[in-house]
């Protein structure tokens, strides 16, 4: 090994793993989703160890929350995520409502349920489309994202916004449902259920999806998932009945009939089936809730000062349990707000899933946990035997994955194969 390459490795902190191959996965690319960094340690094609490094988009929201009034914080925490924004403000609002003496009106609780479930539908649809994209099945991506627009149209009609709904208020919601929406929503939900059944049949029969998803992803046992505190679909796909909506009902979840979906196969395909089934359940819940919407006020006005105390709240976001803790000393600003997102809880499971997988399956497995990050757009490779160094973009990695399974594709633009 030459001095120059030794120095390079030392400065990158790679000396520890000089025997095997180390693949830095991430972190920087502004174009696609958020940045994230995984050190993948390879033995040939197989991944033997994964070390995460998160925080590239850490903005210090918990510190910022201590400087801002209670109400303003809610709209700030809503900006945590661009996909599941509503559930953040809902969970924060519930944590603060626990400190006050006021009760949320029934109609507001139903409206919260409707928006939260619409959000789950569009988030799951987005994910199914992305899985199609990474598998090399662009048609599925186009179809699914087209259907997602139909859901976003309803969200816009109810909230006024597509992404950051800003509909929640402490002890209520800010906007009532427009009149004569019921039939339109029920009709759309019926259409979404039909489409979801169709996508399920595609996943079970289409060759591209079968090859890329069946028996892909390390087997996680129930015991491992329990030990690693997996949340949401990542717990349910190994058979654990872990769902906050069912275990600890909030909003109007105790008044709308539903059942959660669990599976036991434990591969990426079972996650696809699980999320599509969940989407159908959510669509039925929305139809039921709009038809049984109670009358009454939608909001209670509360004073800006929140009494002293501490309270925690959890909700079921599309990706799993989301957790907020609020502590007040009786002032206009919080003493401490803690927020924990589901992706954070699922990272240990993702690391477990990646172990033993081949490099070609990394995009599928990492996308399978439905991460709120997942910058696939920059990978650099280091072969420690020949001191070769090269970089792949996320697109090239995707092509490598597709080529691994379907060698006759991408004939014109061959990507470099691993030595």
């Amino acid at each position: 090994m030459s001095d120059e390459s030794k120095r390079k490795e030392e400065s990158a902190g790679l000396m520890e793993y000089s025997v095997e191959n180390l693949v830095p996965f991430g972190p920087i690319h502004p174009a696609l989703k958020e940045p994230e960094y995984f050190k993948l340690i390879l033995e040939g094609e197989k991944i033997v160890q994964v070390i995460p490094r998160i925080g590239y988009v850490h903005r210090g929201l918990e510190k910022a929350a201590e400087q801002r009034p209670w109400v303003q914080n809610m709209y700030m925490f809503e900006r945590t995520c661009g996909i599941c924004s509503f559930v953040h403000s809902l969970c924060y609002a519930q944590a603060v409502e626990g400190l006050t003496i006021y009760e949320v009106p029934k109609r507001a609780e139903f409206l919260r349920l409707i928006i939260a479930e619409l959000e789950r539908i569009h988030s799951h649809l987005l994910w199914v489309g992305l899985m199609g994209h990474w598998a090399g099945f662009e048609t599925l991506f186009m179809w699914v994202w087209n259907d997602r627009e139909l859901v976003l149209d309803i969200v816009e009609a109810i909230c006024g916004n597509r992404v950051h709904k800003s509909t929640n208020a402490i002890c209520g919601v800010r906007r009532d449902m427009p009149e004569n929406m019921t039939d339109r929503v029920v009709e759309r939900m019926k259409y979404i259920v039909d489409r979801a059944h169709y996508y399920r049949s595609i996943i079970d029969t289409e060759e591209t999806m079968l090859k890329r998803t069946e028996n892909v992803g390390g087997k996680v046992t129930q015991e491992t998932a329990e030990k690693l505190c997996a949340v949401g679909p990542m717990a349910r796909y190994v058979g654990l009945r872990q769902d906050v909506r069912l275990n600890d009902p909030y909003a109007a979840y105790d008044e709308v009939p539903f059942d959660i979906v669990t599976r036991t196969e434990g591969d990426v395909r079972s996650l696809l089936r699980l999320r599509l089934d969940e989407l159908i359940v959510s669509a039925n819940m929305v139809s039921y809730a709009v038809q049984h919407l109670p009358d009454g006020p939608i909001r209670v006005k509360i004073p800006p000062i929140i009494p002293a105390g501490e309270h925690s709240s959890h909700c079921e976001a599309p990706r799993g349990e989301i957790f907020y803790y609020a502590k007040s000393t009786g002032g206009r600003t919080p003493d401490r707000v803690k927020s924990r997102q589901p992706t954070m809880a699922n990272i240990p499971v993702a690391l477990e899933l990646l172990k033993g997988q081949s490099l070609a399956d990394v995009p599928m497995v990492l996308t399978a946990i439905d991460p709120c990050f997942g910058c696939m757009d920059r990978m650099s490779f280091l072969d420690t035997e020949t001191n070769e160094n090269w970089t792949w973009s996320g697109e090239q990695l995707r092509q490598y994955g597709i080529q691994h399974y379907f060698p006759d594709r991408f004939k014109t633009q061959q990507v470099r194969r691993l030595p």
Partner: protein
Amino acid sequence: MSEVLIQHLQKYADEANGKVTTPRKGETFIEIDQAHIKAFISHVVNDLRVLWLSTITGLDLGQNFGIIYHFSHENQKIQVKTTVPKIQPSTDSIVGIIPGAILYEMEIHDLFGLMFAGNPWINQKLLLPDNWPADLPPPLLKSSKPAEIRKRLHLEVERK
């Protein structure tokens, strides 16, 4: 179910000189001395089968650090509280009992400077930037001011 669970919690808390309070329905706070925290959580996880650790919260309580372990069990929220003096900011890691706690402990180490003895990844940075100055206090301490952090990390935007 929940009454039986709280009775058991009370029994284990009494052994460790702890205090159990239930301010609201479904929410239980248990205050435990720092020395007994690992044994108590071991009872909670292994004997009572309360397995789902939601997160760990760090608090700045002036002279002390506060730590809250938030467990979710069916419709119960079980929150185990302890304090660690700031002059000796170190406590036992619970990674041996709950492997899923590893990132939460790293997060508190980054944001409060609190050491968890026994966590294998504790010396790696998780959230803070690589160029975080060693002499700057951890960001979530009350003594740490956002303006100073911005200045030291060269994040200030020059206004014309």
